[in-house]
C-alpha cells in the first residue's frame, strides 16, 4: 500500500472517531452533568454584582481567580457557552446517527426474521394445535388488530410468518425531543448576548462606566438602532420620556437607542386594604415617526405592550426626583434654630455644620413603607410606616454615611417614636435611632431636652440644686467641696452628651483604680440620672405639663427613651436630625424593553419538546412475531416479542395471550 493512501485512511478513521466521540452517550451525559454543576455555581454565587462586593467577600486573591474563571457571570462566560455548544453539537450528531435508522425501523416490520432468532427471545412461547394454519393466522390476526397492532404476513407452502408492530411513532418522539434541544439552543443563541460579546471582542464596543446622561455617552458604548436583540431597562419619571434603554454589562452599561419615544404619563401603585401592593401600572404614550398619532396604552405587571416587535414591560418603580422640604435640627452641639433645606431626590444640597459644610445627597423618597411587624400572637403583619427619605451625608474628606428618616412617628409597645436609620456602608443593614415624640407627635420635646444639655448655665444650676439637695439629705455641710462636686457633675453631663454612657465609663477608667470602677460607675450614673431628671422636670415645667405629684408614667418613659436616644447619638454620627416637613411626590416607572427575535424559534422548540416527550413516554413501541408451521396435520405456533419502553406492560399482554392459548393448545416445553 502506498504511504499516502494509508495516511488518508488513518485521517478518515480519526474523523470517524471524533464523530463517534461527539455523538456518544458518555459525552452527552458528561455535558448534561457539567451544565447542571455550572448552573449550581451560578445560583450559589450571586451573579452580576458590583465587583466591589465580590472583592470584599473573597479578598483580592480569590476575587481575581474567580474573575478569571468567569464565575461572576457564569451563564455568559466563554466556557459555559462552549459546553452548550458541545451539547448542541453532540445532540445534532446523535440525531444524525440515529434518525435514519429509526425512520427505517418505523416502516420495517422485519418480516424476514429467522426462526432461530425468534427462538432466542426472552419473551417467547410455543404451542401445538390441530387448528389449521389459516385459521390460526386469522385468530392471531384478529387478536393483533384488537390490541392495536399493525402486521404483515409472509406465506410459504407450509409456513407463515406474521410480523406485527405497534406504537411506531414512539421513535418520532426521540427525533422531536432531541431536535427540540437543538432548536431551543439555537433560538436562544439569537437572543442571548453572544452577538454583543463578539462585537466587544472585536473592539467595536466598550461598556461605559461613568454616570453620564444618555446623550453624552460616546459612540463606542452605543448600539445601533437596528440591533435585532437586546434586553434593556430604563427609568422614566412621570411626565418625562425616553428614547433609549440601558443594557448592564459587567461593571458598566451600554446605550441602546429606540426608534420611538416612550413617555410615562402616570405611574400608579394600588394597594389592598391590608397595605400590600396590588398593582403597578404605567400610562404610556408611544411617539413614533412612523405613526400619525401617538399610541396610548396602559401596561401593568404581567400585561406588557408589544409594539413593532419591541416588548415593553412594567418591571419596577423608583423615585422620579421628588421635592423634599426639610428642617435640619442641630443635635451636637444642640443649639439654635433649624436650617431650612429645599431638596430634590438625586440632587445635592449643603448642610452648614460647626465642622464646616457637608454635602447632602438625597437618594430616595418613598411614600409607603410596608413593613412586616409581629402582632400580639407573634405572627407577621404588614404595617405602613408612612413616608421616608434617604440621603448620604458626606464630609469634607469624602466619607459618607447613609441615613433613612421616616416622616411620621411609629408605635412600638404603646410608645411612639420617629425612626432614623444609619449605616456606614451599603453592605450593612440600617441601625435605627428611636427618637421619642411628645403628646403632639412632635420631636420638639426631645430636641429641647437634648439642647438643655448644652446650656451650660442650666446644667450648672441643676448640678448645684442636686448637690445641695443631697448634702441636705446626708446632713453634710462642706461648702469647700461643693464647687468640686458641682464641676464634676457638669463634666459628667458633658461626657454624656457627646459620647453617651460609654464616655462616662471611659472617664471612670481614666481616673479610678480598677477594683473600684464598678462601684464608682454606678454612683456616677446615678448622679447623672438625677441631673437629667432635674433638667427634664424643668423642661416639663416650661412646657406647662403639671408635675406636682412627680412626673406621670408617660413622662417617665419618655425620659428613659430620650436618655437612651442621646446615649446612641454618638454612634449615629450626624450632627443634625433632618426632619421631613413636606414633599412633592414624583415617581418614575421602571420599564424593561426587549427585542427577542429568537423567541418564536424557541417556542417552536418548546412545542417539539412537549410533543416529543409525550410520544416517547406514552406511545410504547412493541413488536411481535408469530411463526406458524403446518406439519403432519399439526400446527406449531411460535410467538415472540419485545416492548421497548414499558417491558412490564408488554410482558403482561404477552402472558395473558399465552395463558389463554395454553388453555386450549398444547404448550411445548422449551418454547
Amino acid at each position, binding site marked *: 500500500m502506498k504511504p499516502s493512501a494509508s495516511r488518508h485512511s488513518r485521517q478518515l478513521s480519526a474523523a470517524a472517531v471524533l464523530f463517534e466521540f461527539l455523538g456518544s452517550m458518555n459525552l452527552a451525559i458528561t455535558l448534561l452533568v457539567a451544565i447542571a454543576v455550572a448552573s449550581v455555581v451560578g*445560583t450559589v454565587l450571586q451573579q452580576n454584582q458590583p465587583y466591589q462586593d465580590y472583592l470584599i467577600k473573597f479578598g483580592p486573591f480569590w476575587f481575581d481567580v474567580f474573575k478569571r474563571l468567569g464565575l461572576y457571570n457564569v451563564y455568559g462566560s466563554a466556557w459555559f457557552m462552549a459546553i452548550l455548544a458541545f451539547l448542541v453539537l453532540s445532540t445534532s450528531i446523535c440525531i444524525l446517527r440515529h434518525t435514519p435508522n429509526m425512520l427505517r425501523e418505523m416502516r420495517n416490520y422485519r418480516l424476514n426474521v429467522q426462526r432461530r432468532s425468534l427462538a432466542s427471545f426472552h419473551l417467547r412461547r410455543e404451542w401445538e394445535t390441530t387448528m389449521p394454519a389459516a385459521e*390460526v393466522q386469522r*385468530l392471531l390476526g384478529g387478536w393483533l388488530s384488537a390490541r392495536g397492532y399493525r402486521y404483515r404476513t409472509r406465506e410459504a407452502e407450509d409456513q407463515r410468518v406474521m410480523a406485527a408492530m405497534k406504537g411506531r411513532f414512539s421513535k418520532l418522539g426521540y427525533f422531536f425531543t432531541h431536535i427540540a434541544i437543538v432548536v431551543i439552543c439555537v433560538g436562544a443563541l439569537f437572543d442571548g448576548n453572544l452577538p454583543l460579546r463578539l462585537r466587544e471582542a472585536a473592539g467595536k464596543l466598550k461598556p461605559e462606566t461613568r454616570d453620564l446622561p444618555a446623550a453624552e455617552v460616546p459612540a463606542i458604548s452605543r448600539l445601533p438602532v437596528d440591533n435585532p436583540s437586546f434586553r434593556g431597562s430604563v427609568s422614566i419619571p412621570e411626565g418625562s420620556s425616553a428614547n433609549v434603554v440601558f443594557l448592564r454589562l459587567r461593571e458598566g452599561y451600554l446605550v441602546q437607542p429606540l426608534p420611538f419615544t416612550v413617555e410615562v404619563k402616570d405611574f400608579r401603585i394600588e394597594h*389592598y386594604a391590608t397595605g400590600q401592593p396590588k398593582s403597578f401600572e404605567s400610562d404610556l404614550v408611544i411617539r413614533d415617526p412612523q405613526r400619525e398619532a401617538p399610541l396610548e396604552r396602559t401596561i401593568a405587571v404581567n400585561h406588557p405592550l408589544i409594539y413593532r416587535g419591541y416588548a415593553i414591560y412594567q418591571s419596577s418603580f423608583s423615585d422620579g426626583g421628588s421635592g423634599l422640604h426639610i428642617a435640619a435640627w442641630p443635635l451636637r452641639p444642640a443649639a439654635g434654630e433649624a436650617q431650612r433645606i429645599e431638596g430634590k431626590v438625586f440632587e445635592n444640597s449643603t448642610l452648614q455644620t460647626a465642622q464646616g459644610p457637608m454635602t447632602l445627597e438625597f437618594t430616595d423618597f418613598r411614600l409607603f413603607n410596608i413593613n412586616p411587624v409581629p402582632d400580639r400572637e407573634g405572627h407577621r403583619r404588614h404595617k405602613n410606616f408612612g413616608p421616608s427619605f434617604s440621603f448620604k451625608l458626606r464630609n469634607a474628606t469624602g466619607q459618607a454615611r447613609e441615613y433613612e428618616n421616616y416622616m411620621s412617628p411609629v408605635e412600638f409597645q404603646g410608645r411612639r417614636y420617629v425612626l432614623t436609620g444609619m449605616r456606614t456602608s451599603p453592605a450593612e443593614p440600617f441601625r435605627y435611632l428611636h427618637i421619642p415624640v411628645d403628646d403632639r407627635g412632635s420631636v420638639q420635646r426631645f430636641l429641647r431636652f437634648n439642647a438643655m444639655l448644652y446650656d451650660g448655665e442650666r446644667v450648672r444650676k441643676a448640678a448645684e440644686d442636686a448637690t445641695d439637695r443631697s448634702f441636705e439629705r446626708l446632713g453634710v455641710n462642706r461648702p469647700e467641696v461643693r464647687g468640686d462636686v458641682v464641676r464634676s457633675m457638669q463634666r459628667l453631663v458633658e461626657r454624656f452628651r457627646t459620647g453617651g454612657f460609654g464616655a462616662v465609663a471611659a472617664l471612670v477608667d481614666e481616673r479610678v483604680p480598677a477594683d473600684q470602677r464598678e462601684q464608682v460607675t454606678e454612683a456616677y450614673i446615678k448622679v447623672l440620672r438625677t441631673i437629667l431628671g432635674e433638667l427634664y422636670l424643668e423642661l416639663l415645667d416650661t412646657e406647662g405639663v403639671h408635675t406636682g405629684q412627680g412626673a406621670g408614667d408617660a413622662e417617665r418613659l419618655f425620659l428613659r427613651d430620650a436618655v437612651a436616644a442621646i446615649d446612641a447619638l454618638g454612634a449615629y454620627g450626624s450632627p443634625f436630625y433632618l426632619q421631613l416637613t413636606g414633599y412633592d411626590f414624583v415617581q418614575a416607572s421602571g420599564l*424593561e424593553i426587549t427585542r427577542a427575535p429568537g423567541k418564536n424559534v424557541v417556542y417552536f422548540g418548546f412545542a417539539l419538546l412537549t410533543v416529543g416527550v409525550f410520544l416517547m413516554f406514552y406511545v410504547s413501541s412493541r413488536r411481535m412475531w408469530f411463526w406458524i408451521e403446518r406439519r403432519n396435520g399439526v400446527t406449531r405456533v411460535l410467538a415472540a416479542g419485545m416492548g421497548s419502553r414499558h417491558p412490564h406492560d408488554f410482558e403482561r399482554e404477552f402472558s395473558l*395471550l399465552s395463558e389463554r392459548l395454553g388453555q386450549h393448545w398444547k404448550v411445548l416445553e422449551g418454547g
Partner: protein
Amino acid sequence: MSVTPQDLLKGLEKPPLWKTLGVFDVLWALLVLAGAVFSWLRYGASMDDYEAAILLASGLALIALGWAWKPLRVLTLMVAALSLFAIWRYGDSLKLADSDFFLRFLVSGQSAVMWMSALFIAATAAYFIALFMRSEFIGRVAAAMTWSAVAMGLTGLMVRWRESYLMGSDIGHIPVSNLYEVFILFSLLTALIYLYYEGRYRTRALGGFVLLVISAAVTFLLWYAWSRGADRIQPLVPALQSYWMKIHVPANFIGYGAFALAAMVGVAWLVRDRAVRRHPHGFIASRLPEAGELDDLMYKAVALGFAFFTVATILGALWAAEAWGGYWSWDPKETWALIVWLNYAAWLHMRLTRGWRGAPMAWWAVIGLFVTLFAFLGVNMFLSGLHSYGEL
C-alpha cells in the same frame, strides 16, 4: 374442538377507549360539563379568555381522567359535595368559620386540611401495619384513609379558594400561590399518583413508603401553619396575578409528586435488596413486590414526572416572558428547575441507552428527590431571585 377461533381469545381485545364507554361514563361526562357550564355562567364575567380556556380544558381533562380511572369519579363527587356544602354553610360571611359547627370542625378550609393531615399520618401507620401483619383488611382501611385524606385536602383547597373571595373580591385567588398551599397540593398529588399505581399494580405494600414523604410534607405544613401563621390567606402580589400560575404550578407539582413517588419506590427497592441479601426467604423479601416490578414502577414515575416537569418548565418560561421580559433569565429558581430536569434526563438516558437497572437507579432516584427538594424549598430559603414565591 370445543371453542370457535372467535371465542378463543375473547376478552383479550383492547378496544379504543370510546368503545368501552357505558352509561355511567356518559353520565359522568354530562355531569362534568354541566359543572363547567354552571361555573362559566356564574363566574364567566370575571374570567378572561385564557381562564375560560383553562376551565374548558380542565373539564375535558377531568372527563377523560374519570373514564380512564374510575375511582377518580367517586373522589370528584365527594369533593364537590363537601365543597358545595361548605360554600353553602358560609353563605356570604367568612365569620361563620368559627361559629358554624360544620365549618369549624369539618369543612372550613383550615379544618379540612387538618383532617387531611391527620388521615395521611394515620394512613402511613396503617399501611405499615398492613404490611407487617399481612392483613388485607388493614390494607383496605389504609387505602380508604388515603382516599379520604385526598378528598379532605382537595375540599380544603376548594373551600379556601372560596374563602379568599369572601375576604374580598380583589383578594380572591386560586390557592396555589404560596408554600403553604402548594404543600397541600404536593401531598394530594403524590397520594393520587400513588393510588393510581396501587390500583394498576395491585399492591399496597408500597403505601407506607410513599406516605412517609407525604407525612413529612404534612408535618412541615402543620409546623408552618402553627409557628408562622402561614395558613392565613394573603392577597396576591402583582407578579403572581396571572392565569399562568393556574397551570404552571399544578404542572410543576405533578412533576414533584411523581419524583417523590419514584424516590420512595427507590427506597423500597433498596430495603428489599438489602433484606433479600440477608434473608432470601425472609419476611420483607416475601412482602414487597419483586425487584423488576419496583424498577418498572420507578421508571414510570420518573417518566411521568419528567414529562410534566418539562411542560411546567416550559409554562414557566412562557410566563416569565410575559412577566419579566424574557423567557429565560437564569434566575435561581429557573436554573434549579433546569438542574432537576437535566438530572432526570441523565437518569433516563442511563436506563434506556445503557440499560442501568436496580441499585444505582434507586440511589439516583433518592438523590434526585433531594435535588428536587432543593429546587422547591432550598432555593426559596437560601437563594434570592426574581421569584416572589413563598419565602419561609
